[in-house]
C-alpha cells in the first residue's frame, strides 16, 4: 500500500517532465493572436461610445488567467480518474443544459444559452462538449471486440441528448460540434463505414422530421439557405457573408497591417470579435497571417493526434481523439463560414474568439491532452 502510493507519487513527479511544450506553445500562440484580433475588432467601437478601448482584451486576459488555472487543474490529477467520474460529469452537464432553459439562464439575442455568474457568462454547452468527450471515451474504452450497430447507436444516443438540448436553445453550432465529437471518436473506435452510413441516414431523417414539426427556427433555415443558394435569402444574411469575404479578400497576400483594416475599423463585419474574428486576421495580416494561424492549429492538432497515439490506454486515446475532433471541427466550421465555404453557425474559433466559457473549456481540453501525454509512461 505504502509502496503503491509511493510509486504513484514518484510517477507523478516524473510525469511533469513529460509535458508537451509544443502543444502548450501552439495553444498560447493562438490565444495571443486572438488578443490582438479582439483589440483590433473592438477598440474603435468601444472608444466611440466612450468605453475603455481595451475592455474586451482585458476581459479576455482575465479569462486567460483563469484558464491557466483551469489548465493546471486539468493536468494535476491522473486523467484516469476522469473515467470514473465521467458518467456523473456527463449527467451534471445535461442538468445544466436543462437548467439554462429555465429562469436561471440568461437570454441574449433571442437565445437562452448562458448562466450569469459574477458578471461573466457561462455557457453550459461548452462544459457539455468536454463532458461528452469524457463520457464517450469512458463508454467506448469499456467496449470489447468490434463495435456492433447497437453499440454505435448507444454511443450516438449519448451524444444526441446534449446535441438536442443545445439545439433547442437554439445553438445549431454546438449541436454540430457534438456530432463531430461523436463521429471522430467512432472513427477511432473502428466503426465500420456502413454503420456510419446508417447513422448518417438516421440523422438526416431526424433532421427532416425536425423541420416538419417546426423545431428548426426560421433563421437557421435561412442561414443554411444562404449557404446553399445565395440568391434565396434576405439581404441581411447575404450581407454578413459578403462583408466577411470582402474583409478577408481585401487583406491580400500580406494584409493591410494591424489596426488598419477598413472593414474591421468601420464595423462592416458583424460579431467580429467572436464568430467572425478570423476576418480581422484575414484583413490585417493577409494570406500569410491566415496561414500562420492555420499552421498553429495544424501543430495543435498534430500534437493532439500524437497524444492519442502515444496514450497508454484506450481511454486516453479516445479522450485525445475526441478533443482533437472538437478542435478540428470548430476550427474548420468557423474559418469555413468566414471564408464562405460553410454555413453561418454560431461556432467560435477555438482560443481566438472572444468569450470566457469557450476559452476555459479549450484550455481545460489542452490540460487533459497534456495530462494524457505526460502520464503515458505511468
Amino acid at each position, binding site marked *: 500500500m505504502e509502496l503503491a502510493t509511493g510509486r504513484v507519487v514518484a510517477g507523478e513527479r516524473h510525469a511533469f517532465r513529460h509535458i508537451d511544450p509544443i502543444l502548450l506553445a501552439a495553444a498560447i500562440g493562438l490565444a495571443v493572436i486572438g488578443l490582438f484580433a479582439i483589440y483590433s475588432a473592438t477598440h474603435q467601437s468601444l472608444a466611440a461610445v466612450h468605453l475603455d478601448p481595451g475592455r474586451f482584451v482585458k476581459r479576455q486576459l482575465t479569462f486567460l488567467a483563469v484558464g491557466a488555472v483551469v489548465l493546471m487543474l486539468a493536468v494535476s490529477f491522473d486523467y484516469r480518474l476522469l473515467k470514473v467520474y465521467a458518467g456523473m460529469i456527463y449527467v451534471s452537464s445535461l442538468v445544466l443544459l436543462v437548467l439554462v432553459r429555465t429562469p436561471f439562464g440568461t437570454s441574449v439575442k433571442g437565445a437562452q444559452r448562458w448562466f450569469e455568474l459574477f458578471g461573466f457568462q457561462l455557457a453550459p454547452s461548452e462544459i457539455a462538449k468536454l463532458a461528452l468527450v469524457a463520457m464517450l471515451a469512458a463508454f467506448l474504452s469499456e467496449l470489447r471486440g468490434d463495435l456492433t450497430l447497437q453499440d454505435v447507436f448507444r454511443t450516438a444516443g449519448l451524444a444526441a441528448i446534449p446535441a438536442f438540448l443545445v439545439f433547442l436553445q437554439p445553438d445549431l453550432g454546438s449541436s454540430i460540434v457534438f456530432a463531430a465529437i461523436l463521429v471522430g471518436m467512432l*472513427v477511432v473506435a473502428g466503426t465500420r463505414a456502413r454503420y456510419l452510413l446508417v447513422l448518417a441516414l438516421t440523422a438526416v431523417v431526424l433532421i427532416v422530421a425536425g423541420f416538419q414539426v417546426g423545431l428548426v427556427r426560421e433563421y437557421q433555415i435561412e442561414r443554411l439557405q444562404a449557404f446553399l443558394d445565395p440568391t434565396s435569402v434576405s439581404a441581411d444574411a447575404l450581407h454578413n457573408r459578403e462583408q466577411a*469575404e470582402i474583409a478577408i*479578400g481585401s487583406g491580400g497576400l500580406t494584409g493591410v497591417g494591424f489596426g488598419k483594416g477598413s472593414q474591421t475599423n*468601420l464595423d462592416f463585419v458583424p460579431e467580429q470579435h467572436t464568430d467572425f474574428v478570423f476576418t480581422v486576421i484575414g484583413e490585417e495580416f493577409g494570406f500569410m497571417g491566415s496561414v500562420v494561424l492555420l499552421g498553429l492549429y495544424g501543430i495543435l492538432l498534430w500534437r493532439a*493526434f500524437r497524444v492519442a497515439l502515444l496514450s497508454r490506454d484506450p481511454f486516453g486515446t479516445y479522450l485525445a481523439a475526441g478533443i482533437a475532433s472538437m478542435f478540428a471541427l470548430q476550427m474548420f466550421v468557423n474559418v469555413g463560414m468566414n471564408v464562405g465555404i460553410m454555413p453561418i453557425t454560431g461556432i467560435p474559433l477555438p482560443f481566438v474568439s472572444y468569450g470566457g466559457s469557450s476559452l476555459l473549456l479549450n484550455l481545460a481540453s489542452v490540460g487533459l491532452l497534456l495530462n494524457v501525454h505526460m502520464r503515458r509512461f505511468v
Partner: protein
Amino acid sequence: MGLRVKVLALLVLAMFAALTTRLWFLQVLASEELKREAADNAVRLIEVPAPRGVIKDANGTLLVQNRGSVVITINRQELGDQTESVLLDLSELLDMPADELGARLDDPRYYAFSPIPVATDVPKRVAYFIKEHQEEFPGVDVLSVPVRRYPLGSAGAHVLGYLGQISKAKLKDPGFADYSPGDVIGVSGIEGIYERYLAGTRGLVKYRVNSIGENLGLIGRQRPVAGDDVWLTLDAGTQQLAEDSLKAGIQHARTVVESDSGYLKANAGAAVVLDPRTGAIEAMASFPTFDPALFTRGFSQEEFERRFGAGHSYPLLNRAIQGQYPPGSTYKPFVAASALQRDIVTTGQSYGCPPSWTAPFDQSDPAAMQYVFNNWTTANLGFMNLSTALARSCDTVFYPMGYRYWDMFYVNDEEVANGVTSHEPLQHDLGSFGFGAQTRIDLPFEQDGRVPTAEWKQSIHDQYPQSFPEGEWFPGDFILMTIGQGDTLVTPLQLAAAYGALENDGKECVPHVLDRVVAPDETVVRDYQQNCRKHVRIDDKYLTYVRDALTGTMTGSGTAAAAFAGFPFNDVWVAGKTGTAEVPPKQDYSWFAAMTAAGGQEHVVVVLVEQGGHGATTAAPIARHIIEGLYGLDFSQFTDVAGTD
C-alpha cells in the same frame, strides 16, 4: 487503433487543404476586386438637395418659401406581406383611416420602387415611436424633408404651381438628364416653368461610413448651390383682391335667379389684372382654387378625383389661360375697330337696332339660306351710332357688319385677286389683337383660343365630321363672329391682352408674370425684358373712338351702368364691355372686360364667370370690386343687377 487515429488525422488534413485553397482564392486571386469593394464600402456619396429658391411678389412679399416637414414614407416593395398590419398600426398612430393610407399607396404618380409620402407634418412623438419600433414598420421611413410653404395659403396657387415627382416623359427628355426617378420637380405654374432657376444645383458629400451607415467623418464635399429666387410681377394684395372679389361675386351669383334656368350655377370663373403698358400680370385668379400645400404628400386616386375632379369643377385648371370660352359681346370692340378700318361702318352714321335682323337672301347662290338673328333684347332700341351700339351692345347693329365681310371680301374674288385685301380681313384684324394664338405668357399649358376661318372649318369638319357636321363657310360664320359667338374661343388672358392693346393705342405687350430672377448672392440673373409691339394695323383714331365708346357702357343706358351705379368715374377712368356668352346647354357665361386709369396707374381687368348669367349680373360687379380695390376706393356691395348683355 493507431491506424484509425491516422484516418481521423487525414480527414482533418483535408479540412486544412480546403480552407487554404479558399483563402488562396480570396486573398490572392480575388483580392484586387475585394479590395476595391472594401474601399467602396467605406465611402458613401450623399446627395445634398439644394435649397429651392423662393418666390416673391413685386414688392418682395414671400409667396412660396421652404420649411422642414417630418414626412412618413412607405416603400411598397419592402412592405411585403405585412402591409395590412403596418397600415393598421400607422392608422392608429396617425389617427387616419387605414383605407385612406392604403389608397395613398396606390398613387399612380409614384414608381413602384419609390417611397410614397403618406403623411406630412407628422408629430415628433409619432416619428420617434416609429424610429424606436422600426422592426415593426418594415418599409416605413421617417424623414425630415424640405417642403414648400405658402404664407398666403392658396393665394396665387394657379400661377405659382406646385411640386411633384418627375414624370417618366420628362425623364426621357434630354433637357432633364440630370434628374433621377423620384426627384421632385416643379409640375405646373412658375414652379414648373422656372424650375431651372428655382431648383439650384444639388451638392455631394463624401462620407466615411461604417456598416450601418453611421457617419465617421467627411472626406470631401461639393456644396449645394441654392436655387435662385423668382420675383414676380404679381402683387400679393391685388392677387388676394382678385381672388376674394371673384369668390364673393360667384357666391352672390349663386343666390341670383335668372331667366328660366333657376339659380345661377356660377361653378367657376377667372379674373386677370394686368398693366397694359408693360404686360405685367398683377393678378391672375381662377376659381375654384386649391391648396398647393396639399401636394407635399401622396393622394389616393379617389381622393385626387374627389378634390380635383369634375365634382369640384377641376380646381387645378388655371381658367385664365387654360379655359377657352366664346367671348360674346366683349369681342365687339375689336370687330368694330376692324369694321371701321375696312370701311364697313363709319363713325358718323346711324344704324337701326331692331329686335332681330334677317340676313339677305342671295339670289345668285341657290344653296344660301335665309337667317334670322335676334338681338339680346326683344325691345326695339331705335337708331344709334356705332359708339352707342357698343355701349348698349346692340347685336343687330353688328350682324350686318358680319354679312358685309362675306359680301365685300369673301365672295368678291376681284378685290382679293387684285391683292387689295385678304379673303378674311376680320380674322386677320382679330388675329392682330392676339386672338387665336397663345399670348406667350411665361406659364405652362396656355391654350390658343380660336379665330375660325374657312380653311379651319373645312379641316376640322374633315377630322371630326360628327362634332362639326358643316365644313362649308357661310355668311352666318361672319355674322356670329361679330358678337363673339359661333366657333370663336378666347382665353380670359387673351381678352385681357387685347383690351390692353386697345388701351395702349394698339401696342400689345406680351403678358408675363416674371419680373426678375435673383441669385442667392443678390445678383440679378435674369431681368424680364418687356416685349411690346404694335401688331394692330388699325388707325389710332378708330382705336380711340372705340375706347371712348366703351366709357359709355359704364353710365346712362350703357349695359354696365347699373353694375357701376355710384362709381366715382370723375376720379377713376373706366371703359368696359359686358359679355354674355351662350354655351348651350349650359347657363350663359358672364364676362366683363375693363380698362381703367387714374393717378398714373393703368390696368386692364377681365372677369369671367362660367354659368354666371349676363355680363352685367355677375362679372361686372366683380370687376367693379377689383377696380375699387386697385384704387383704394370704398367697396360697394354685391347686389342684384338687372340682366343686360
